[in-house]
């Protein structure tokens, strides 16, 4: 049940709203309950061909040879696609916004870097024929040592996974990590009453949508290709596909928007380029969907993350220093992980105001299935680690965990570690509402605090000192809001 906490920020909000808080029927509900919502695979296209990929059984291997002669001889097989058929085989999805290097083949040719990587695509008149023909493609491999652990991948002497990077990590301006720095974290640890360091590990998570990824590409009469697809990013996938196939984007007409569960897993544009290439080369409609097994094995998951958090905390509950080392497991290719790791860095130290922060977020290549977006990726794993850490810290200093969070929560105007001031904060009000709904009593002092600038300030508290001026050659040590300083006894 949804409850609106309307007393919070009432003066900042116009409650004269027509739709918010009013129950409305979903616009797609009738289609769903009548079975008439048209998912991509509900489009019936006459003369459709079916594409089945041949995937790597190895996590890491050199490809010595590929022999498709037996598959080609099978009746019903129309065309076999190989790396050489793809106009611009090496790409990366974030090239669209200028983030490179291109590091992934649409079809592998010299090496495979994860189990389930596609190498050859067989197009045949039925799904059964395509599946059998795919099993007749002979690929000779030279297995290579595989790496599945982010720290092992970073260690000297680790096997090089993705040659397009030259290292097993994404380079952020020449560094092996994306840094975020504020204050002096080592001085904070030296001044702290307690220092603890903990290690957190989150496994990859498969989105497992009920509808697997797929697309149907249909050659149109006007020289365009009409594409029915369940991508979550229709124009993103269109542009990625246009890049890979080196065609103007106006030659592709993507029809979609109806997605049978996505959760971030249907943004990598894995199926559209091959089905469209198949349609271009055969002149026939081509359908390419992932089987359930492929969705689980080769479909991108939320990438694994390993996070170390070292905190300095005072006996009165103030966190005075936080250092985070974040390793985001990209798997074999970049996809969206270089961006996810930056999100992780920007999120440090969580929704709390801590004067001394150091974060190093790494995007690491391993031989795992490439990871992708999933519901807050880059931030979700950090929050898992941070909130467990907050409970541990509260226990360490003998504070109630809700009160401990309210004490350290960011307020409007507080400087965040990445150098922007907090605005629109509402964490304190959320914790207060949660404590109320859970019948978890918190002290009056904490009930009176708020996320506003000056919220929680009391005239009896000593005034805050003026913000420190940055000295030449030194990064600015951001000022801490007067309210924050007053809550924490004016120390800052």
């Amino acid at each position, binding site marked *: 049940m949804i409850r609106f906490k309307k007393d919070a920020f009432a003066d900042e909000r116009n409650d004269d709203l027509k739709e918010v808080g009013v129950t409305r029927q979903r616009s797609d509900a009738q289609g769903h309950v009548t079975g008439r919502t*048209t998912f991509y*695979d509900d489009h019936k296209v006459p003369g459709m061909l079916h594409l089945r990929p041949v995937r790597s059984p190895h996590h890491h291997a050199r490809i010595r040879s590929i022999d498709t002669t037996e598959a080609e001889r099978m009746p019903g097989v129309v065309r076999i696609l190989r790396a050489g058929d793809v106009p611009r085989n090496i790409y990366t999805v974030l090239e669209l916004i200028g983030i490179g290097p291109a590091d992934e083949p649409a079809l592998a040719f010299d090496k495979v870097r994860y189990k389930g990587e596609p190498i050859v695509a067989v197009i045949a008149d039925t799904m059964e024929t395509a599946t059998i023909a795919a099993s007749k493609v002979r690929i000779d491999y030279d297995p290579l040592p595989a790496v599945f652990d982010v720290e092992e991948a970073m260690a000297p002497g680790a096997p090089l996974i993705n040659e397009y990077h030259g290292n097993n990590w994404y380079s952020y301006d020449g560094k092996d990590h994306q840094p975020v720095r504020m204050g002096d974290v080592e001085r904070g640890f030296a001044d702290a009453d307690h220092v603890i360091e903990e290690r957190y590990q989150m496994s990859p998570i498969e989105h497992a*949508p009920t509808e697997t990824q797929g697309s149907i590409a249909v050659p149109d009469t006007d020289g365009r290709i009409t594409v029915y697809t369940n991508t979550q990013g229709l124009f993103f996938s269109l542009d990625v596909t246009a890049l890979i196939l080196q065609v103007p984007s106006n030659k592709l007409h993507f029809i979609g928007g109806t997605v049978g569960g996505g959760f971030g897993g249907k943004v990598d544009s894995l199926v559209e380029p091959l089905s469209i290439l198949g349609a271009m080369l055969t002149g026939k409609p081509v359908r390419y969907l992932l089987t359930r097994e492929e969705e689980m094995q080769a479909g991108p998951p939320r990438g694994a993350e390993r996070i170390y958090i070292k905190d300095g905390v005072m006996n009165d509950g103030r966190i005075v220093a936080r250092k985070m080392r974040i390793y985001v497991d990209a798997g074999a290719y970049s996809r969206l992980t270089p961006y996810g790791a930056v999100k992780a860095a920007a999120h440090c130290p969580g929704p709390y105001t801590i004067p001394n922060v150091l974060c190093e977020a790494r995007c690491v290549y391993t031989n795992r299935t490439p990871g992708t977006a999933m519901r807050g990726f880059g931030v979700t794993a950090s929050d898992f680690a941070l909130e467990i850490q907050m409970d541990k810290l509260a226990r360490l200093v003998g504070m109630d965990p809700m009160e401990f969070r309210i004490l350290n929560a960011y307020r409007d105007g507080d400087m965040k570690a990445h150098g922007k001031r907090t605005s629109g904060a509402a964490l304190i009000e959320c914790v207060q509402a949660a404590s109320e709904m859970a019948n978890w009593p918190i002290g009056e002092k904490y009930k009176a605090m708020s996320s506003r600038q000056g919220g929680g300030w009391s005239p009896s508290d000593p005034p805050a000192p003026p913000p420190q001026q940055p000295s030449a050659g030194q990064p600015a040590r951001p000022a801490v809001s007067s309210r924050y300083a007053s809550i924490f006894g004016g120390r800052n």
Partner: protein
Amino acid sequence: MTLTPVQFRLNGEEKAEFVPSGTTLIAMLREKIGITSPKIGCYQGACGACTVLVDGEPQVACLTLAETCEGKSIETVEGLPKGTEFHALQRAFMENYAAQCGFCTSGMLMSAKALLDKNPNPTREDVIDAICGNICRCTGYEPIINAILAAAGNRGPGRSSSRSA
């Protein structure tokens, strides 16, 4: 290729098809007849998105051979409305927000219909048991359970009796 004749009733109407031996019911419905409400989520009987009723029993159409439906009655979501009137389950699913992406909805509706046809007054536990073979990955189970109970006109008592049980 040997074609097998199959005669059956589909949503109350007589139907006859020739299918290659080994054709699944889902393939016959979706590809030959154009009934697209049952969805393919796994093709291994695990997700329940293809659930249809065969002689009133919920069955996963991806593991049911078309030829075994000879002489049987098959029901899908297409047969739920009576003319322009929605089935009580369809109304309840709309009113209770029991569909998010919609991909599992057809299977859910058919499992629910099988339950209500046999047991018009199910408890919450009965409903949970009836849809235990239908996966909703948007994890909207609560509104689905509530919708089925609402369709049975049993929302309040069904809930409390099941809690005390």
